[in-house]
């Protein structure tokens, strides 16, 4: 066979793999480089941030420094600074010769001490060694022999060579003495040096303080420090590590400006010439609320407990912010960042930090005001029913126990009588007696439970009205119309829309109607609508209620809008309601679970009287619910005034009550059972009192930890995918408008998206599903506005089970707890509708048009900025329980009877009174119990002086303050001085009269009545001649005088001012003409009634 010819191109020989190798090498190298790059930069994006930060912050500081230098120059230019600087120079000059002398002496001494020390320490060491030998040697003889050695050693002399060349010989004791005396000398000289330098250091501190106090921004030196710090920054992970709370937050690796003491905005951190701030600039801002950081030290709290996100991640923004799948705690968005407060502040109803308007506080308040807690349990809300239920349970157990004991003891006594031995009889009798004593203990315990129940029943409120009164109160035909869509009749109402079918509406109306009480109401005379309108607008109704719709709406949103109340309400009922909303038709016995009527009282031959003073059940002696469970207080109006207001309110309608379609089917008994089913199904009893459903539980899920539910457990139903893709399922324009950020544009598959959609359109997760009537979602549409959805979402997002240690929870045990508890009450009763508790917080009234007029401004309820420091807490308790401060004459204010607006009687329980008084005391840092300051008794000369000043034309006190003289008080704008003694704290009064504007800005009482002369407060105007040579505080004198003012003295003063009731009478009536816009003088209830 011939050899095969060698092919021209043998692939083994001729084919080159160079290209393959090249590609492989390139790939390998590229991978290597990529790996290296990734290691250095890719996985460490924060490095780039730190580089950019160094450049931008340095540039920022540079310009800040020049600004700061300019303002420092300005400060240094002031004469005060120059004076201080001169002081410093003088002090330095004065001190320097002595200082130099002392410093030289100390220097000399130091070298002397050194030379002595060199010899002394050597010898002392030897002495110590010998002493130790004596101590440790065992034989007496050796002890003695060493003792001798020691003595001889001590007697030996040693030579010390001083720096000046002189030599001195010392034995050991002399040496020790020389050494100590030299050291004493040095200490003395040092002290002297300190004394000499004292004026210098003092004036230096004064100078530095002056600069620091007068520079608004940082001083150039401080900025220099920052520059040094940023210059020294080398790229590294910045980390907060709190082992105790398992916090590891590396956020500051990129957010380097967060804790800087200067204000850094995205604009100020942008690159030069950049049009819009880039990601770097946005990341470098300083914390927008440095005050918050002050009270939440990042070294303890880190970042993620408030903001969430993944504090440990450093590889990308998404990771660090926790915006990736399966991370349970993504960063709170800008709109909901306050959710983080809830982590530790769940027990707080009101969060305050310098400013107001916290979204989270609003959400927490809405959760209560809108009745969410009627269906959803939430820890901390509406605690009374649960406690009451457990108390009722306890009552039952205790009563059974008592009965058993009685039986048992009777049985034992019987046994004892028939016992065989006396011993046996005595033993049994003792046991029987023991059981009887046990029963008396049970009685005591029951009594305590009843007291507690009494308080709880007073405190327990329902968001909606008592529907047992439906028949007495409502226009029957209106009920089904209302149920159809409540917001149609009354936009903004708390009553949500349950999407009921017509059949359901008919059934529910029928049940409500047929289960209602049928008692008769006292018939009321018609009132004067015009007077009623005036009262309605001035007594304070509008602090909670609103009237008018759209742009015409005025008043508060805490309670119902009354624009159409005339279409639904029954006059007789309305009068009773306005006169005292707490007045109940029949008391309810939670023990027997029934409404108690006159027949029950008659059985026990008791008068049919029930109120807070008569709250025992005639049947079983336990506490009755004797009030309507409404927060609406009594304004202590006369019946006539209540009739006038009711008459006015009934004119508020858009159509006649008779125009409603007939709904006589509501009397159909067949519908009742069906209705009951639906009333129960929808949990109506969560917000309303409904006959037969007093003990119904909540129908919704508990929301205390709703925010930490894994996303998979939130039922997006058919919309999981749309949510992930950012599609908007809501189509109803009304509901779309409720979404805080408008229709979805990006993925909303998160807690925020779920809550927002649920709140905007609760039935959305039923869309496309086939469900029966009873299976459909029950959550009603609360017709919330955007900001309300945002607030509630924030609140729910923050409702998380915290992994932080318990001591991170803000649950103080000191007076701060009083503040915490107080806010729950302040918001419960809407005190903020009328009062301001801190500057910047606007009450409802203060924003109303009427109160913009300067004359009406004087008519605003008092600001309570320093209430705890102002009033005696015991007086405050009395005032809160009866603001008329009088048991019979109640149709007035007890303190400011010149105000048209009325401080209502809230019928607070003892428990709530205690909490409120403590709240005010704690808010003003006042100790409890209060021990009144002793006010010295004035001498007759002092009294005369004070009286002279008090009544002089220069001192205007009695022009504005009420005196009890009816004519004068019609124009008073301040309380009667006679109240001061019991009501006020003397130290507060003194601060008040020196500068009232500092305590209550805008008050009618002017500042500048007193000036400080020679460290004493002196009246600013001309003083009576008797003040010649008086060198005490005039303020103190007046306060002491006010605190011992008697009615007689007040009359004397009025008389000395040429004022008497008789001469004033005709003039006053004329005067009311002068100011047309001035609030008209109050008409007393009696005269208002008589005028008709």
């Amino acid at each position: 066979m011939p050899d095969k010819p060698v092919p021209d191109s043998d692939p083994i020989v001729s084919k080159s793999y160079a290209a393959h190798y090249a590609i492989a090498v390139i790939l390998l190298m590229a991978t290597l480089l990529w790996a290296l790059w990734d290691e250095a930069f890719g996985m460490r994006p924060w490095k780039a941030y730190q580089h950019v930060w160094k450049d931008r912050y340095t540039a920022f500081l540079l310009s800040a420094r020049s600004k700061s230098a300019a303002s420092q120059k300005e400060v240094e230019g002031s004469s005060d600074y120059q004076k201080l600087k001169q002081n410093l120079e003088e002090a330095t000059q004065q001190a320097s010769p002595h200082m130099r002398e002392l410093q030289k002496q100390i220097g000399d001494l130091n070298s002397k001490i050194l030379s002595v020390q060199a010899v002394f320490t050597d010898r002392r060491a030897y002495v110590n060694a010998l002493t130790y030998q004596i101590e440790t040697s065992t034989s007496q003889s050796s002890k003695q022999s060493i003792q001798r050695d020691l003595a001889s050693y001590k007697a030996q002399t040693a030579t010390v060579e001083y720096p000046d060349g002189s030599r001195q010989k010392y034995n050991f004791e002399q040496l020790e003495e020389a050494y100590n005396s030299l050291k004493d000398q040095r200490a003395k000289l040092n002290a002297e040096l300190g004394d000499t330098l004292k004026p210098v250091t003092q004036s230096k501190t004064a100078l530095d303080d002056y600069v620091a106090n007068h520079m608004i921004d940082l001083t150039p030196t401080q900025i220099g420090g920052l520059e040094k710090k940023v210059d020294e920054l080398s790229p590294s992970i910045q980390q907060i590590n709190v082992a105790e709370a398992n916090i590891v937050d590396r956020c500051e690796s990129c957010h380097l400006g967060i804790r800087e003491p200067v204000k850094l905005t995205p604009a100020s951190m942008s690159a030069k010439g950049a049009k819009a701030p880039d990601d770097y600039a946005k990341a470098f801002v300083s914390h927008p609320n440095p005050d918050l950081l002050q009270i939440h030290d990042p070294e303890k709290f880190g970042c993620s407990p408030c903001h969430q996100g993944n504090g440990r991640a450093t590889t990308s923004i998404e990771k660090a912010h926790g915006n990736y799948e399966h991370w349970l705690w993504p960063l709170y968005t800008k709109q909901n960042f306050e959710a983080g407060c809830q982590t530790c502040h769940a027990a707080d109803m009101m969060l305050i930090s310098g400013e107001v308007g916290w979204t989270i506080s609003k959400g927490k308040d809405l959760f209560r005001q809108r009745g969410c807690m009627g269906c959803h349990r939430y820890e901390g809300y509406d605690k009374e029913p649960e406690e009451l239920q457990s108390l009722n349970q306890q009552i039952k157990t205790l009563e059974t126990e008592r009965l058993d004991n009685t039986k048992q003891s009777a049985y034992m006594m019987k046994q004892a009588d028939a016992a065989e031995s006396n011993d046996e009889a005595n033993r049994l009798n003792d046991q029987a007696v023991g059981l009887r004593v046990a029963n008396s203990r049970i009685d005591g315990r029951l009594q305590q439970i009843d007291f507690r129940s009494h308080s709880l029943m007073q405190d327990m409120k329902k968001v909606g009205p008592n529907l047992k009164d439906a028949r007495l109160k409502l226009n029957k035909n209106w009920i089904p119309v209302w149920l159809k869509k409540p917001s149609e009749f009354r936009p903004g109402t708390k009553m949500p829309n349950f999407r009921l079918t017509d059949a359901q509406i008919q059934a529910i109306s029928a049940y409500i109607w047929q289960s209602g009480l049928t008692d008769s109401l006292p018939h009321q005379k018609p009132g004067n609508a015009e007077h009623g309108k005036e009262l309605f607008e001035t007594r304070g109704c509008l602090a909670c209620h609103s009237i008018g719709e759209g742009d015409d709406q005025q008043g508060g949103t805490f309670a119902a809008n009354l624009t159409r109340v005339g279409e639904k309400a029954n006059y007789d009922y309305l009068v009773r309601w306005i006169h005292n909303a707490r007045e109940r038709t029949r008391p309810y016995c939670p023990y027997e679970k029934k409404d108690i009527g006159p027949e029950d009282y008659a059985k026990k031959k008791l008068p049919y009287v029930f109120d807070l003073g008569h709250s025992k059940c005639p049947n079983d002696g336990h506490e009755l619910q004797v009030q309507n469970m409404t927060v609406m207080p009594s304004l202590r109006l006369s019946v006539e005034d209540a009739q006038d207001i009711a008459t006015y309110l009934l004119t508020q309608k858009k159509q006649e009550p008779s125009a409603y379609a007939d709904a006589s089917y509501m009397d159909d008994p067949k519908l009742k059972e069906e209705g009951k089913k639906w009333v129960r199904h929808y949990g109506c009893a969560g917000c309303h009192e409904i006959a037969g459903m007093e003990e119904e539980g909540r129908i919704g899920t508990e929301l205390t930890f709703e925010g930490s539910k894994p996303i998979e457990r939130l039922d997006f139903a058919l919309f999981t995918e749309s949510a992930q893709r950012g599609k908007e399922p809501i189509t109803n324009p009304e509901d779309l408008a409720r979404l805080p950020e408008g229709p979805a544009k990006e993925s909303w598959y998160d807690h925020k998206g779920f809550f927002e959609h649920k709140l905007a359109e609760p039935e959305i997760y039923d869309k496309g599903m086939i469900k029966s009537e009873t299976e459909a979602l029950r959550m009603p549409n609360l017709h919330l506005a955007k900001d309300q959805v945002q607030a509630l979402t924030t609140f729910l997002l923050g409702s998380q089970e915290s992994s932080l240690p318990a001591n991170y929870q803000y649950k103080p045990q000191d007076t701060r707890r009083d503040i915490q508890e107080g806010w729950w009450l302040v918001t419960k009763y809407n005190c903020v509708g009328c009062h301001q508790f801190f500057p910047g917080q606007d009450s409802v009234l203060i924003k109303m048009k009427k109160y913009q007029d300067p004359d009406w401004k004087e008519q605003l309820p008092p600001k309570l900025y320093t209430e705890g420091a102002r009033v005696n807490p015991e007086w405050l308790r009395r005032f809160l329980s009866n603001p008329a401060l009088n048991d019979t004459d109640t149709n007035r204010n007890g303190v400011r009877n010149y105000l048209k607006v009325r401080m209502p009687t809230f019928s607070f329980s003892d428990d709530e009174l205690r909490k409120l008084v403590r709240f005010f005391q704690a808010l003003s840092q006042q100790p409890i119990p209060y021990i009144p300051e002793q006010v010295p008794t004035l001498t007759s000369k002092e009294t005369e002086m004070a009286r002279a000043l008090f009544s002089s034309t220069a001192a205007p006190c009695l022009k504005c303050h009420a005196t009890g003289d009816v004519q004068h008080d019609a124009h008073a704008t301040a309380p009667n001085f006679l109240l001061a003694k019991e009501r006020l704290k003397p130290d507060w009064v003194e601060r008040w009269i020196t500068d009232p504007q500092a305590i209550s800005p805008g008050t009618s009482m002017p500042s500048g009545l007193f000036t400080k002369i020679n460290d004493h407060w002196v009246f600013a105007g001309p003083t009576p001649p008797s003040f010649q040579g008086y060198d005490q505080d005039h303020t103190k004198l007046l306060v002491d005088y006010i605190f011992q003012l008697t009615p007689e003295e007040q009359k004397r003063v009025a008389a000395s001012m040429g004022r008497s009731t008789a001469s004033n009478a005709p003039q006053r009536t004329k005067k009311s003409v002068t100011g047309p816009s001035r609030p008209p003088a109050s008409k007393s209830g009696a005269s208002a009634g008589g005028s008709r």
Partner: protein
Amino acid sequence: MKNSRLAFLLLLALAGLLLLAACNKKENTEQSTSPSAAPAPAATPIDPATVGSLSGTVKYDGTAPKPAKIDMSQDPACKGANENEALIVDKGDLANVFVYVKDGVGNRTFDVPKDPVVLDQQGCRYHPHVLGVMAGQTVQIKNDDPTTHNIHPTPKDNREWNESQPPQAAPLEKNFAREEIMLPVKCNQHPWMKMYINVVKSPFYAVTDKDGKYEIKGLPPGDYTIAFVHEKLPEQDQKVTIAPKEAKTVDQTFKAGGAS
């Protein structure tokens, strides 16, 4: 051989490219120093030779109720007669109307006059009842009564204060930083004592006298909105054009019924 060199070259090129990219990045980040603020466009200066003036009479259309007499017997130190000044009309001329250039001066700024405007309390009455002042200008408040007054402005956009001024006390010197029209001032001790301060940014304002007359001088030529403001009546605005050196007359009438 040739191919492997190629590979090496490629590698080099790649490395170079990477290096370049890295350098670029650095350069990008380095170009950042302090941002510069755009200077505000300069205002056209006022040429005194071309300025015009604006004057006129303000009328009240309707019959004004006779001002009510004020009874001041509450304080015997209040001497003289006093009547309600809320609506002062004499033969149809309306006094106490504040007239000012509401719009049209553009971004011009004006020096704040060194001289204070004086508010005097005499006979338990404010003189004048309506006052104009430039923002930042001193208002000197005097008390010429033998009784103590307190001065209590209740502003919307300025800081509120309330100070006592005893007889013979030194004048109070105050100023208001922000523009505010019809800022009410009252004395809490003499509730009838009321006046209004108008704080404006330009010197172009006037208050009508008892004949309803006002005059605003020194207006540079231009288009303006002139506002007529009365404490009780709704504000009236007028657009006017001032030609160089023109002395323009602009009258205004307030209709009755607007009074509250």
